[in-house]
């Protein structure tokens, strides 16, 4: 009875149509509520579902159940293909099953971390909480060109792995570190410090300010709080034993520190170049690649065999 039901092709086709319908519903839910599904691809799917017990995820549960049914139906089809010695179709059905198994593995274990590796860090540490592990890698060199539009292109970075070997990472060319894949996403800059030149009685002095790190100047502690996007204005906290105040400093303006007036001559930010990488742990990747390649290969071979016949019809 159950076998007959699973081999009923018409019902299976309608169930596949149902998967499409629920996927369309799901895609619209995600599209119009992106915040709700913000981290769905970052966590393993099953973990995400446990942590987000919401009504609007009903479609995922329905699709998983339908795929479970399809998996059983495919097993029976595979047995029939084997009996008929239809190797190519059997291979395709087998790869569909393998693909579904790979996705169970993926839904259980796959996660990704977005991190930022700084060039000037002697040792960049990527904490992988899920495995309570730290990846110690070092960015040795970042090479890039600036396009005519001012956008960095041909970004490459040389990375020293924990075992001391060097690897080159590029966009579209991820590298493997331990069990993880490092995927280069972009280049970025970090504000490391600001150099402020001030003049007092024709004497020029230099101030090096780091974010949230107090610096003593003229017996007052100066802390850099914020900087404008064009780096023309900085917000400083001035503190001594008695008073505390917040001042905005602009190039060309005067600032009074401990009863002395200084002319702000220049504000120069110092930026660190960094690469943005994603760290991906995906134990299902190999299975997905094998199953999808196997399926595509069998499909193409079958297509080539039938092609001539098809053209004549």
């Amino acid at each position, binding site marked *: 009875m159950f076998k007959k039901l699973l081999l009923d092709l018409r019902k299976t086709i309608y169930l596949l149509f149902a998967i499409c319908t629920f996927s369309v519903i*799901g895609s619209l839910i995600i599209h119009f509520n992106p915040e709700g599904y913000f981290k769905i*691809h970052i966590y393993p799917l099953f973990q995400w579902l446990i942590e987000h017990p919401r009504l609007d995820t009903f479609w995922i549960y329905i699709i998983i159940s339908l795929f479970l049914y399809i998996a059983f139906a495919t097993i029976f089809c595979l047995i029939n293909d084997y009996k008929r010695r239809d190797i190519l179709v059997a291979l395709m059905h087998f790869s569909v099953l393998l693909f579904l198994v790979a996705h169970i593995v993926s839904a259980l274990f796959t996660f990704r971390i977005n991190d930022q590796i700084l060039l000037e860090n002697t040792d960049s540490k990527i904490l992988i909480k899920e495995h309570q592990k730290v990846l110690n890698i070092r960015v040795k060199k970042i090479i890039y060109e600036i396009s005519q539009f001012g956008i960095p292109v041909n970004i490459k970075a040389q990375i020293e792995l924990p075992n001391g070997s060097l690897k080159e990472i590029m966009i*579209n060319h991820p590298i493997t570190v331990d069990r993880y894949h490092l995927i280069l996403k972009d280049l970025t800059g970090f504000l490391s410090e600001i150099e402020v030149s001030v003049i007092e009685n024709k004497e020029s002095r230099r101030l090096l300010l780091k974010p949230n790190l107090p610096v003593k100047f003229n017996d007052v502690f100066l802390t850099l709080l914020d900087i404008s996007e064009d780096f023309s204005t900085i917000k400083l906290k001035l503190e001594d034993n008695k008073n505390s105040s917040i001042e905005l400093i602009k190039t060309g303006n005067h600032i009074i520190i401990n009863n002395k007036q200084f002319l702000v001559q220049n504000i120069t930010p110092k930026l660190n170049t960094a690469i943005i990488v994603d760290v991906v742990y995906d134990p299902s990747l190999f299975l*997905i690649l094998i199953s999808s390649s196997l399926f595509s290969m069998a499909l193409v071979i079958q297509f080539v065999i039938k092609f001539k016949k*098809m053209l004549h019809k």
Partner: protein
Amino acid sequence: MEKAFIVISLCITLYQIFFKKSQFLNIISFLILLTLIFYTTIIYKHFPVTGLFETLSFFTFSILGLKLLIKEDSALYNLSSNIIVSILLSLCLMASTKKTAFTPDALNTILFPLHVAFSFLAYASFTLAFCGALSKIDTIKIQNLNYIGFVTFTIGLWTGGIWAYKAWGAYFLYSIKEIFSFVIWIYYASVIHIRFIKNNIKLLKISTIIGFIIVIFTYIGIGLFMKNTHSLG
């Protein structure tokens, strides 16, 4: 300059709709669009499948190519396919040909043109299957067109998946376009199984028509009106 190719091709298609269909004119139209593809490839130094104008012209080119490959004399089939071609070419004329000339690093891979070209070949095949479903052509031909579409779409998804993993670290990011591509694949996987069902003509025709609606919505609707990783801009 690019639009001149489109105008000539559109005139040929309109002539075929209102006056006389001709295989020779189809070949001419196909060659004009082929020249356009070569021209833009040489000018911009990349395979022209980015943006609305290029994808529309490539889509039309694929339809004409497949039409030449799979010959069919049905008047309604030819009329409907010519109407679709003329609509696509008109949209092409409305689309901007302006290019930033800046190609992001992620697009500098052979997987990108392969992914897009195979996807549009599949779209073209599904479109012709739709035209077949509207007319009275042999259902085997409709099945074959759906089958060609499914094969090319699978290759398109496979190359796209590998590329997406290399560029984004994930072959599936739950964006609306990706989910709809998954829908198209599952949908046509079931459509090509319809041939094993008895008395399937009605089911095949209806599902082919619905399939085409999903394909067009995925390409035009989502590409243009819903912001996502595959937006046409």
